[in-house]
């Protein structure tokens, strides 16, 4: 017979364990509902002219035959396009002007219900900025017409974007380096940010930003902070992300999405006036000092010297203490084994 006291103890222990497990599970975010792909899309596609375009552009071997981008692929994967958020829109919703690109028959039907007619601009868009952009585009950059196309349907995002550090450089200065809509969201295969494969999915955001912010040439040209990718990778945020499950803070959580400004800009989420509010989104009660605990600064002889000293002292402590200790262990073991005759040669030549 097992005594009842022991049984009680086991029961209490099990209950405590279950409660702990339940608590740990409770913080798991609800699974994002992913709508099943609409099978009728394949039929709707006929209405928008997409099928007509894909007759040629759905061929893997299609390339340009002339111009500066000679031999560049013009292939669009129909499967991936139909899986994207814009599958309902026809090609001509974005490619509003395809005359002069080798299309003799440019009379493509654009009668999709969601498509914006070429030339038509929603009233809410910053008309002046778009007009200025239209003027500036003038075919100078291959990407700029795409920005206009996006702005047609997404004026709110566009209006914020053109004030940001990226958008201002693109639209205001005509710089081709900073990212456009398509650089972060993708081209033909844009997925919702809740999709694991999306470039804008929180799990993929560091990789998306990394494409420019880890480039030595880009960092040098614009005087960007050097080790943003590495320091983020060493942070608790990144480590928590690698463990999986649950939301973590990535680049955009602190710096913003379309509204990224230089840290000195008062509109920036990481400006010293707003940073405690930004951290406070997750860390209740965070103050300005708290924010400075997370820094992209490099720990070196010139930067963050106090922390550098701490790490160096401890590093040499490890070498200076563990080294002799292990050495003594070896010496003692050899001495002890020799005394026992364990190291003597047993066989004679």
């Amino acid at each position, binding site marked *: 017979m097992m005594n009842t006291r022991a049984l009680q103890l086991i029961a209490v222990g099990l209950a405590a364990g279950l409660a*702990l*497990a339940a*608590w*740990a*599970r409770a*913080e*798991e975010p609800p699974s994002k509902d992913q709508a099943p792909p609409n099978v009728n899309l394949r039929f709707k596609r006929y209405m928008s002219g997409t099928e007509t375009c894909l007759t040629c552009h759905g061929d893997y071997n299609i390339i340009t035959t002339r111009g500066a981008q000679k031999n560049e692929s013009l292939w669009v994967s129909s499967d991936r396009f139909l899986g994207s958020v814009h599958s309902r829109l026809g090609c001509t919703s974005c490619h509003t002007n395809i005359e002069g690109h080798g299309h003799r028959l440019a009379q493509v039907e654009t009668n999709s219900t969601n498509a914006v007619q070429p030339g038509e601009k929603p009233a809410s868009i910053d008309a002046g900025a778009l007009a200025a952009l239209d003027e500036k585009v003038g075919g100078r950059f291959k990407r700029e017409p795409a920005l206009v196309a996006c702005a047609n349907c997404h004026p709110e995002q566009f209006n914020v974007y053109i004030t940001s550090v990226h958008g201002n450089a693109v639209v205001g200065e005509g710089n081709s380096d900073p990212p456009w809509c398509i650089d972060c969201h993708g081209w033909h295969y844009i997925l919702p940010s809740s999709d694991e494969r999306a470039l804008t999915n929180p799990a993929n955001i560091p990789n998306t930003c990394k494409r420019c912010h880890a480039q030595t040439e880009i960092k040098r040209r614009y005087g960007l902070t050097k080790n943003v990718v590495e320091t983020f990778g060493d942070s*608790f945020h990144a*480590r*928590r992300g*690698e*463990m*999986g*499950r*649950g939301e973590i803070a990535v680049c955009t959580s602190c710096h913003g999405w379309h509204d990224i400004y230089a840290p000195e800009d008062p509109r920036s989420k990481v400006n010293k006036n707003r940073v405690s509010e930004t951290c406070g989104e997750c*860390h*209740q*009660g*965070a*103050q300005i*000092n*708290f*924010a*400075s*605990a*997370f*820094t992209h600064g490099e720990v070196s002889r010139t930067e*963050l010297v*106090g*922390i550098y000293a*701490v*790490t160096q002292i*401890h*590093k040499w*402590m*490890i070498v200076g*203490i*563990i080294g002799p*200790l*292990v050495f*003594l*262990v070896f*010496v*003692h*073991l050899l*001495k*002890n*084994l020799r*005394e*026992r*005759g*364990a190291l003597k040669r047993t066989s004679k030549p």
Partner: protein
Amino acid sequence: MNDQPIGAVPLGTLLPAKPAAAARTAAQQQRMYTRFNIHQRLQHFLLVFSFLGLMTTGMPLRFPELAICRMFIGLLGGPEAVGIIHRCLGLIMATSGAYHITYLIVMWFKGHRKHEILFTPLDFNLFLDDMKFFFGLRKEPPRFGRYNWREKFDYFGACFGVALMVATGLVIWFPQIVTWVLPGWTVTAAVLLHEYEALLAGLAIFLSHFYWVHLNPDVYPMSMVWLTGQISEDDLKQQHPLEYEEIKERERLAAEAALQAPAAAAGEEVAQ
């Protein structure tokens, strides 16, 4: 031999026994001396328990990029659960430290104010002699007291380690509160210190301490002092000769006093 633990067999068959060590098997028949009392053993046990737990939960939290660490985190119920367990174990480690300080204070008020564990200038000579003995420049091992230089070093290392880990751990646990008064870089420094000190302590325990108390052929498979608190007369004589002599001297004085006391009492009676 039936009284040997199973684990003792492999190394035991590899190593010829030392003639002197063969006598150790008859340790049960020897007189035993108390080396550590129940409070000291409890403190050590709390430290062992929390240390091993903190190591096994802390390493996966630090290196989630390794698949085995992620597997272990999943096994324990996810990152949040591992974090909670790690904090609880940290509190146990802090408890062992608090227990020790309380113990020292109580002992102080009970009049026990001389601590053998403290370093003395003599330790430096003993250390040099020990090194000479290690490298064969000296035939006889140095004669240690209750604690040799390595044990003293272990003790103060543990004190420093626990104090630092508990302090930095609390800073990482409550960064918002800490940064109300302290600058932000203290949190960054605390994280780094916590990591380096964990590495230092882990290496010291697993590579050095475990050798001296487990794998060392003289005590293999394990010195039982940390569980029983008892040390045999032979071991005491061999490892801590000065302490052994002190105990013998104390016993001799006590015996003499006991002999004289009845005589004195008898003398008093006669005088009356």
